[in-house]
């Protein structure tokens, strides 16, 4: 009796047991899905981001899921919606579940899921640029008015032609057209800390690489902990630059100077097996508020 033999045995048993344990609890919706086809009678599984997320804030506001009535605002997101607190969480769930629908930053979109057209317009950098794709929001950078020399230099790099080219290369839309070229100043050195939105972080990391390649003596720390944390850090000066994937709030704007660095579309994504190609804004709203719960109500 060797250990390998034993481990193999236990491994097989483990797999078997897990399957058995799950199997015993099954028996509810055993789908009538035939191979390859998409069964539209299935319930839509709505995947949303968590409350407070910049992406959710922008999405619910634009699609009308968030209802404003005087001073009152009500987020009517379907209460049975699965909540994921990251772009990848939403993508992995949608990629693995034929009947689900979610929304993510356009810059993160890849082949594992399918983006649907909204009002017949495909979600691409071009359609976001010319405003024909309706669901888009800015990525903002903010500082409290006291930028160090080196941070100021980094800031102008981001807003320069070189910086904006990186933004476009990462799949976002540039915020500044006809940006001036970046002129590197010799002998820049020091440390910059950038704190904020998890959605902005990926593009920020690439910007940092581009900048430090030109200014090797500068170190830039990027901390990814959320838009509000970033704004707070920028306000109290514990970070040089804050990142937000949403518009700034009034109380934040009192202290901070903000500038958009990119426009990001929000793609509505479904599983690649799903036959749906087009949705209207109204349908998106109905799905995310739970008014419509099966795919055939949409497909007609």
């Amino acid at each position, binding site marked *: 009796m060797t250990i390998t033999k034993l481990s193999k045995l*236990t491994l097989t048993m483990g797999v078997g047991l897990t399957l058995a344990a799950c199997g015993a609890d099954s028996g509810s919706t055993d789908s009538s899905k035939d191979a390859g086809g998409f069964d539209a009678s299935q319930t839509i599984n709505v995947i949303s981001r968590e409350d407070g997320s910049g992406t959710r804030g922008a999405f619910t506001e634009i699609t009308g899921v968030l209802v404003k009535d005087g001073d009152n605002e009500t987020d009517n997101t379907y209460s049975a919606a699965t909540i994921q607190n990251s772009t990848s969480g939403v993508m992995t769930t949608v990629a693995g579940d034929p009947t689900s629908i979610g929304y993510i930053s356009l810059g993160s979109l890849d082949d594992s899921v399918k983006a649907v057209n909204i009002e017949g317009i495909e979600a691409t950098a071009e359609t976001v640029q010319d405003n024909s794709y309706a669901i888009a929001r800015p990525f903002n950078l903010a500082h409290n008015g006291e930028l160090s020399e080196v941070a100021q230099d980094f800031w102008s790099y981001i807003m320069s032609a070189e910086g904006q080219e990186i933004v476009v290369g990462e799949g976002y839309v540039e915020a500044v057209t006809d940006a001036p070229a970046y002129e590197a100043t010799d002998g820049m050195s020091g440390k910059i*800390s950038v*704190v904020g939105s998890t959605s902005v972080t990926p593009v920020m990391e690439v910007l940092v*690489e581009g900048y430090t390649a030109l200014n090797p003596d500068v170190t830039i*720390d990027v*901390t990814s902990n959320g838009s509000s944390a970033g704004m707070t850090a920028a306000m109290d000066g514990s970070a040089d630059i804050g990142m937000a994937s949403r518009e700034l709030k009034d109380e934040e704007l009192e202290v901070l100077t903000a500038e958009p660095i990119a426009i990001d579309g929000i793609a509505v994504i479904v599983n690649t097996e799903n036959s749906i190609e087009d949705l209207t804004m109204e349908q998106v709203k109905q799905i995310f508020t739970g008014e419509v719960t099966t795919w055939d109500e949409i497909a007609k």
Partner: protein
Amino acid sequence: MMASKLTRGFIYLAAAITFGSLFYVVGFILIKGIPYLNLDMFAWKYTTDNVSLMPSLITTLIVVGMTLVIATPIGVFTGFYLVEYAKKGNKVVGIVRIATDTLAAVPSIVYGLFGMLFFVTFLNFQYSVLAGVLTSVIMVLPLIIRSTEEALLAVNDSLREASFALGAGKLRTIFRVILPVSMPGILSGVILASGRVVGETAALLYTLGSSTNLPDSLFSSGRTLALHMYVLSSEGMHVNESYATGVILIVVVLMINGLSTFLSNRLTKGTK
């Protein structure tokens, strides 16, 4: 006879489920992650291309090392006080025990929030190695205290008496006689504490931050391996790399546990 067989059957089944799940978890991560391990991931500097885990590996070592340097003396000295100095029924002992037991039960997310409110905001350390380390110190203290206490209690009283009879003072007895004998137990507690820090995510997320750079001072931010895995998965572009990071994490944990077992076995033999 039938009942006996049935009992035995259930017991064997339960053991099979337990160790089956363990093998399944470890096997699954290894099989999924090993194919994605490559040399690029061990480059010195993190870029969005190579997704290197080297900076986080080194940060992990720094955080673990500093945590142990601070927590070990405090924990071991607490053990000394509780076992060697405090008199039976001492009020302080009771309070310290309750405090230790409660600390051990505090969930890591609460440690994280506390670290954020106290070290990061109140003491204004920012997201930094210092804030992360101090939070971890509090988190692992109960582990070290408990294992020291157990190790000291296991030391035969005749050793203490013999040492006193030879004219050694209390301090000398503790450091020259009792400490060497109880070393294996204390060490294995310390090593387990390092394992806890390696695997920690929730407590460090809000204290250490998640910078991809190697921290160059106590006040700069960094990320440990577990945090790296968490952040990679949140960004959504590097799922395969997070599997690979999972493999490295499991390997590190395996090494730590192996070292703990090996050391305590060897040292026990050495003293006998």
